[in-house]
């Protein structure tokens, strides 16, 4: 009964849409044939460059050899996974990956939100613009340059940070060579580089808050602090949840570039993560199958995490990716 009513409603309000869906598939395609030509190239690209490698992942279950190629190599089941799980490096690599991720998240996630909230209090003017301009800038520095900046500033005796340390009476150290320092250097330099840029999305969300809410709060005599707590934070919540889902889903996906550049034989016990391991074993060591197995293990975990976090967020806050 109710269903029939809805149908009637649809018919009367949007008859065009109703009739359109009655068109045959052939007619629908003919109507936009040019779009199919446009989309052809990117779709072919997706199939060749994204889906072919996805099928290539089967080498994780094979003993790849160059002569027989991906399809011709021998199946070996889970051999490479077992080798990885039982290797002495396994525990260390997983631990480093997870610790670096969580550390990055704990340090890097809240700061852009604070920055956005603070900037939102400074309504207009040159000050706000210059804070934004300056804090966004490091995002555009390349990883190579970023890492060399870190290394230059930490150079014993010459780098400015080391000079400050010795001025304060602490011992000079080769920071980059101490495993205990690696994670902090990695994480905090990342915060320095990305906090401004990461705050843009929150600034944009705050800019779209209905101004009448602030006016009502002012009439009620709310202080700036109260306005942040009762207006700004609730408005930010959906976007914060989305960003959190994305970061948690990527917790095993520590980027390769920066870590690889920061690695040296001295700090390796603290800096080896899955992505750098995959590169070294796979491409440098030409152990294609084993390295693919490690990579596949990593992406499957990532996918599961993303789905799980998304599911959880949907239950708890009714905000989710899809």
């Amino acid at each position: 009964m109710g269903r029939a009513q809805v149908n009637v409603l649809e018919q009367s309000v949007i008859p065009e849409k109703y009739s359109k869906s009655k068109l045959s598939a052939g007619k629908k395609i003919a109507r936009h044939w040019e779009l199919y030509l446009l989309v052809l190239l990117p779709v072919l690209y997706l199939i060749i460059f994204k889906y072919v490698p996805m099928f290539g992942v089967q080498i994780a279950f094979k003993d790849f050899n160059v002569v027989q190629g991906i399809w011709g190599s021998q199946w070996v089941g889970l051999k490479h996974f077992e080798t990885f799980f039982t290797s002495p490096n396994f525990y260390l690599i997983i631990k480093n990956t997870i610790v670096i991720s969580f550390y990055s998240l704990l340090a890097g996630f809240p700061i852009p939100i604070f920055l956005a909230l603070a900037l939102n209090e400074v309504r207009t003017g040159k000050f706000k613009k210059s804070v934004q301009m300056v804090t966004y800038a490091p995002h555009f520095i390349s990883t190579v340059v970023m890492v060399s900046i870190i290394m230059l500033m930490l150079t014993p005796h010459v780098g400015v940070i080391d000079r400050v340390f010795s001025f304060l009476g602490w011992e000079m150290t080769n920071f980059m060579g101490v495993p205990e320092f690696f994670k902090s250097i990695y994480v905090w330099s990342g915060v320095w580089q990305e906090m401004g840029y990461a705050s843009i999305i929150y600034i944009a969300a705050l800019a779209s808050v209905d101004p009448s809410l602030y006016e009502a709060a002012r009439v009620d005599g709310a202080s700036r602090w109260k306005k942040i707590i009762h207006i700004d934070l609730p408005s930010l919540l959906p976007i914060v949840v989305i960003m959190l889902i994305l970061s948690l889903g990527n917790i095993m996906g520590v980027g390769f570039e920066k870590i690889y550049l920061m690695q040296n034989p001295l700090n390796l016990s603290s800096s080896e993560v899955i992505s750098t391991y995959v590169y070294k074993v796979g491409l440098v060591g030409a152990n294609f199958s084993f390295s693919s197995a490690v990579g596949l293990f990593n992406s499957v975990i990532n996918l599961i995490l993303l789905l799980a976090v998304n599911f959880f967020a949907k239950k708890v806050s009714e905000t989710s990716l899809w």
Partner: protein
Amino acid sequence: MIAAKKIKEPFGDRLFLLGIYIFLTLLMLAVLYPLLYIVSSSFSSPRAVVSGQVWLLPVEFSLKAYKSIFNSTQLMYGYYNTIIYTVFGTLINLVFTVLLAYPLSVKSFYGRNLVMILMMITMFFSGGLIPTYLLVKDLDMLDTRWAMWLPGAFSVFQVIVARTFFQSSIPSELSEAAQIDGCRDTRYLVSIVLPLSKPILAVMTLMYAVGHWNAYFDALIYLRSEKLFPLQYVLRNLLILNATDPEMLANTAQKIREQGFEQALKYALIVVASVPVLIMYPFVQKHFVKGVMIGSLKG
């Protein structure tokens, strides 16, 4: 008027605002200082750099480091290659992004969801490093410029941003009017949609171009020939692996070298490599918020 508003605010609020100003100023200085320090060091004499005299402003102003840098053919090659990778790579990115995003924005495009799903899956799952490498190898693109352009021909995120922009910022009446006038999809895209999408195209161009300018990973994996290496790869060798370029040190006496000329060179290298990007970005900055915000919308 601002003054009048401030007087009205209670003491607690003014104190709070003062705290915020202090917080933001400190934050800004913390970001600014390393950048200033690097620029100042690059303009200081090597002796001053190595003896740790530079704190904020250049000490014993000198352009020696810059002069040496421009003697290096290795670095100039890197520059040349990076410009080629960036210009053509960004062009390829933009074409692919628009070709995919526009059809996805047309609601009556039959098969739209299928293409969308095909694309979204690649965002969450990929073959990974080795299978992609093997593909590039099988396509005979190893050690060619194509390896720098094709494996990352577009980013799914940017496609979604563009699609959402086309959907939300271009009135559908335009499309209907164009259809009635007998304007087909391609013509409509080229003469109506693209001219109306300049802000988003500007942000996309910046993002893609910066990505190409700063990339070194693809070069590390796919390239072997020195004459193809992009700037970042050359920089990595000089800055991080501490390889020395004899050409840069050619005109310096042994004595200066001992005083850490290489150290001073590094600061100048950093400046020379980063300046092109850093002077480009303020021009597009005003569009950022738009680009990021659209990307975060679902639809």
